[in-house]
């Protein structure tokens, strides 16, 4: 393409090109301005020279196709697209914060910071996957953090509300950090950049069958990507696992292999050295999470980014398996697997692709007061049906301990037991006959003066996909004063199912 190169001072479709901010292998990034546009902007321009690899053009077109279809705080806002018939570029919002690469220089990081980074990136991934887009090239330089405008939401999730819960169950607290430690002070929401290798699940994949070597970045690429599979959302979870491993230990789980199929094949059978072997203070729950993310088979990883974010926000709820207790590198096992054909075995039959929608986080708000009792069975009925149809779903059972707006309520019963603990026990009892395995169910008692607000905040902060609660009666007073369920239906960020008792049996409200 014999066109003139874009350089500082050029004017392209009304955008004035400023300084060059970055030059990578595939593209250059310039600061640009446009009269009347206050948002700081950058222009990404592909580095396409005569006779270049056509896959570079295709990759840029794929990014041009995907970026404008994305929305929300976790992606840069697309402003304009210039097409290949004239001048190919993408003008987008300039993200002011720092990239995760900065943090990598300081690794290993404090554990709380690793968890915090993981939670924020997982939240961003949940948003991306919900929009049918897989990033497929997650690495430290492709993840930015917006400047902190306010304390990040995820932090409050486990710092305040859960602290009391941890006290309630000291046996399950695997490290002492979550309750007391101050939140790390860098940055706001995670933002993904560079969608050149990404995939939109509802659009043609221009990159399918374009590359001879696997696409991705060697230390982070998932095993199925090595096998050229590009429709697996959990590939992004693997990459995040590799990053968290490196942030927690200072070492990469598979080193820094050459970018050849042969070198990358090793991760199809190798079990990485457990993080605790490298850094003993890595808590069991974090080792559990990281090694689960690095599982060879996607089915053994977290079913969705939302569920991962949930565990990172509630470390005391992580179910610890054999992974959390591993204490040595399985040199012999790895050697034998590589030598004797274990190499291809794990992925010869890839499980059919399943959308994250089959692994929803379901939340039930349970009213444990006497008036709520008639709704218990209808609620459990709905949940049984939902849980049966989505075998990878998980259930968060929530009860709100209502506190007075002014003044202090007694938080212990007359016999001296904590009301909070009492509620947790009742909540577990309520859920017992649904017989869910521990890894599919968690229990949360929230303290709030405003139950509806507490329920919707919990749903929002924990990426809940489906919220189930009961409505008591439909009588006069509620109609005028408004009920919890009405307020939740109006404000909840997700699907809401409201259970009711059939009219004949309901008490007058």
């Amino acid at each position: 393409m014999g066109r003139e190169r874009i350089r500082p001072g050029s004017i392209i479709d009304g955008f004035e090109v400023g300084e060059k901010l970055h030059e990578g292998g595939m593209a250059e990034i310039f600061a640009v301005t446009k009269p009347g546009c206050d948002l700081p902007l950058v222009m990404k321009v592909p580095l396409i020279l005569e006779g270049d690899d056509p896959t570079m053009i295709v990759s840029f077109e794929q990014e041009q196709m995907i970026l404008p279809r994305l929305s929300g705080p976790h992606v840069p806002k697309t402003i304009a697209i210039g097409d290949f018939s004239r001048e190919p570029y993408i003008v987008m919002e300039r993200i002011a914060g720092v990239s995760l690469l900065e943090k990598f220089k300081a690794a290993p990081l404090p554990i709380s910071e690793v968890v915090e980074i993981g939670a924020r990136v997982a939240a961003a991934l949940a948003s991306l996957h919900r929009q049918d887009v897989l990033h497929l090239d997650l690495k430290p330089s492709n993840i930015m953090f917006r400047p902190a405008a306010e304390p990040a939401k995820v932090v409050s999730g486990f710092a305040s509300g859960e602290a009391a819960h941890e006290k309630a169950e000291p046996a399950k607290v695997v490290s002492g950090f979550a309750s007391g430690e101050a939140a790390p002070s860098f940055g706001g929401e995670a933002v993904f950049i560079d969608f050149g290798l990404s995939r939109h699940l509802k659009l043609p994949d221009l990159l399918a069958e374009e590359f001879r070597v696997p696409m991705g970045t060697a230390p982070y690429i998932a095993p199925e990507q090595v096998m050229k599979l590009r429709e697996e959302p959990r590939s992004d979870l693997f990459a995040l696992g590799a990053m968290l491993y490196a942030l927690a230990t200072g070492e990469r789980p598979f080193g820094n292999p050459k970018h050849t199929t042969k070198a990358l094949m090793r991760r199809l059978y190798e079990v990485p050295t457990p993080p605790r072997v490298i850094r003993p203070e890595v808590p069991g729950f974090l080792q559990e999470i990281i090694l689960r993310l690095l599982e060879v088979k996607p089915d053994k990883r977290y079913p969705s980014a939302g569920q991962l974010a949930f565990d990172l926000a509630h470390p005391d709820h992580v179910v610890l398996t054999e992974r959390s207790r591993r204490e040595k590198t399985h040199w012999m096992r790895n050697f034998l697997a590589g030598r004797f054909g274990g190499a291809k075995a794990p992925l010869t039959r890839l499980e059919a692709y399943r959308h994250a929608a089959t692994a929803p986080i379901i939340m039930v708000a349970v009213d444990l007061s006497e008036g709520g009792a008639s709704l218990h069975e209808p609620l459990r009925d709905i949940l049984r049906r939902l849980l049966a149809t989505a075998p990878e779903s998980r259930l968060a059972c929530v009860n709100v301990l209502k506190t007075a707006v002014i003044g202090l309520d007694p938080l212990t019963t007359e016999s001296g037991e904590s009301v909070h603990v009492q509620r947790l026990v009742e909540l577990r009892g309520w859920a017992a006959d649904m017989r869910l395995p521990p890894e599919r169910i968690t229990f949360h008692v929230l303290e709030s003066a405003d139950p509806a607000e507490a329920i919707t905040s919990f749903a929002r902060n924990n990426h809940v996909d489906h919220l189930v609660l009961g409505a008591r009666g439909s009588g006069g007073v509620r109609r005028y004063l408004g009920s919890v369920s009405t307020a939740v239906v109006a404000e909840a960020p997700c699907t809401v199912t409201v259970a009711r008792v059939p009219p004949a049996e309901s008490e007058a409200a």
Partner: protein
Amino acid sequence: MRIGILSDIHANREGFEAALSALRRLGTDRIVLLGDIVGYGADPEYCVETAARLMEDGAIGILGNHDAAIDGSDEDMNRIAREAIRWTRTRLLPEHRAVLKNLAISHRVEDALFVHASASQPAEWFYITDERNAERSLRATDARITVVGHVHRPHLWRLTSQGTATGHAPHQGVENPLAQSQRWLAVIGSAGQARDGRPGAGYGLLDLARRSLTFGRVDYDHYTAARKVREAGLPDQLAERLLRGE
């Protein structure tokens, strides 16, 4: 330019009307009838007359193998298709036949080529159901976008820079951007005899300015269409097919 595409109407009045009004709601600058106006269904006269009116208003009419068989040979057809063609011949007047005779084998609008079956030897009516046939069609033309029907199952193929064809079943109602660096081959679903597992009238919307293609489908009264097939004494399998969409 927004081009509405109707393919494989197959004398199905109900499907034709539903797909056409779906396109009218979306807004089009031009209509392309991508072949096989007749054959299989019970309303050949209505469909040919409607097609003729559309063409008077600027629509492009492409010849399909069933249209060609009316005044040509039906030797290559399977038994059921042949039976339907023979029945259709008894219904069509010379005016109807003249409309079918005037259909074009292919037509080009800017860098888009419209042809019923394949750009490779169009009158051989190859089915683009695999990489090999997709590749043959893509190599037989320099058009950046080829639009065909004939298969009755929507598919979107392209030629990779490695020189091979690859494709996928497109999502209904999603606007697919057609990247400029690629050459594309779109198989539009049938308006009159769906074979992709669900009764419904398929259509396509090609936007040349936006370089995008949307595969659409609309539900229609396939019960009535199937009942008419039975009442006409056409092979029962043809009615079953409309009911099942496969």
